[in-house]
């Protein structure tokens, strides 16, 4: 399998408290990869490391086959980047920013840029410093899309945008992806947003990658089971038991959070003399929360 982004034992340190990695990230080519994690978990740092904007302490990064940072310029010819905070020159107008960006990117699509300008309802002669947060986000996305990249790296592209703007931005993104088949690496702490569009998820927590799986296995794998009369020793379950807690209903009811659940595993409970009362599906956000919770607390029993 070829990867759009691949890191090897990537490590970084900032100050005494923040430590990242060792990180082995694999973003499959052609995927829409959701990069999840709470604020401060190291998402932005990872992205900046991958793009050669921060100097890694150890480890290597390859993006679209280019070594980073040594081949960063060649890499940036094929990568559209939307940073967390606008990095554009505030004294330029929207049109000037477009002209500047277009002058540097060979694949710049003037027509697409003009269309997106209309779609996003941006005024060409507004100064960037005067744009609202939403307009700024749209402009950043416009620039990244109109350069027709093979890889889009989006760092919280919709953070702080109102729902209408967010919808416009996502629609433009999806439109571009369906047309070009580009890889998208998108970080967000807004899980709902990613739920619709991603086919891979990576979850960061406290500077570590705690999961990296295809979306369907992530969404389907994590379940909340309501179990009655469970023995103290779980034995050897066919699934991964993430957590075991007392239920809030009748006594003797427990809630198990499991990963890798399949319907055929019901038999296991009969084997240990317990009753599986219910299997609750978790959506991405709940799964995400459970994953973080269980990743942080060492598993009991």
């Amino acid at each position, binding site marked *: 399998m070829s990867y759009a982004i691949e890191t090897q034992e990537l490590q970084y340190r900032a100050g005494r408290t923040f430590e990242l990695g060792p990180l082995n990230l694999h973003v499959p080519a052609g995927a829409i990869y959701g990069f999840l994690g709470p604020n401060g978990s190291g998402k932005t740092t990872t992205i900046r490391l991958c793009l050669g*904007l921060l100097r890694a302490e150890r480890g290597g990064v390859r993006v679209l086959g280019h070594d980073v940072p040594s081949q960063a*310029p060649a890499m940036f*010819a094929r990568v559209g*980047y939307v940073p967390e905070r606008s*990095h*554009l*020159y505030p*004294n330029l107008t929207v049109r000037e920013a477009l002209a*500047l960006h277009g002058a*540097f990117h060979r694949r710049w699509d003037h027509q697409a840029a003009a269309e997106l300008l209309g779609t996003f309802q941006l005024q060409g002669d507004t100064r960037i410093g005067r744009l609202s947060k939403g307009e700024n986000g749209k402009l950043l996305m416009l620039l990244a899309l109109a350069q027709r990249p093979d890889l889009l790296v989006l760092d919280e592209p919709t953070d702080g945008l109102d729902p209408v703007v967010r919808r416009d931005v996502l629609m433009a993104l999806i439109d571009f992806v369906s047309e070009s088949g580009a890889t998208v690496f998108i970080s967000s702490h807004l899980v709902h947003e990613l739920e619709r569009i991603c086919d891979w998820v990576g979850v960061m927590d406290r500077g570590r990658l705690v999961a990296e799986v295809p979306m369907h296995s992530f969404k389907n794998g994590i379940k909340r089971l309501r179990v009655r009369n469970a023995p103290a020793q779980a034995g050897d379950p066919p699934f991964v038991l993430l957590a075991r807690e007392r239920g809030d209903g009748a006594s003797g009811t427990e809630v198990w959070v499991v990963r890798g659940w399949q319907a055929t595993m019901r038999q296991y409970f009969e084997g240990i003399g317990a009753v599986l009362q219910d299997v609750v599906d978790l959506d991405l956000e709940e799964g995400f929360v459970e994953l973080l919770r269980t990743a942080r607390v060492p598993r009991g029993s």
Partner: protein
Amino acid sequence: MFAAICRIQWKASALGVALLATLAFIIPLLTVQQAGFSAGDRRGWDLIVMLSAVETAGTLFPILAVILGLTLSVGAWSADHQAEHVYALTLPVPRWHYVLLRFGAGLLLIAPVVAAVGLGCAVALGSFDLPAGLRSYGGAITLRFALAAAVSYAATFALAAGTKRTTAAVVGVLTAVIVLALVLEAFGVSTAVAEGIMNAIFTRPGPFEVLVGPWSLIGV
């Protein structure tokens, strides 16, 4: 690429360049006028006093050149410093390439100011007939101004291209050495360090030789 960088450099420095070009045009005119070289009655001319006025006014040229260099360097780097260079670093060109583009764009903007100096000198010198024995140096001033502006720009540009830490370190070390030397001098310990540094900078083969020396528009 270069054209695009030139446009944004122009946008960042246009006001300063326009202002400095205006000054550059006016300075020769004012020099000639203040010194007393105006058309018409030349019987009351005291040339030696007038020449010394011209010489004094001439010091404005290197000052203007340094200010121009500084303005252009600030224009070239301030936006990038504000954005912590992220935009520049995400462009698909190597760092050195980008730096050269920036430098070239600023260098280009020296031209209008140099032209203003040349024009100002020409107009100023054309406004009266030079007395016998005196010569005018409009061309030399213009060329020297161009060189002085170029080297000032290059120096401030290089200084500003570094990280804040590098820039602070270079400026800090220079200042510290000079201050230390001056303090020692005040306590009677002659070090000649400050003088040595000045010499190294302002005489050949130092970089700023062009800034010092005669800048008189009119001389013998």
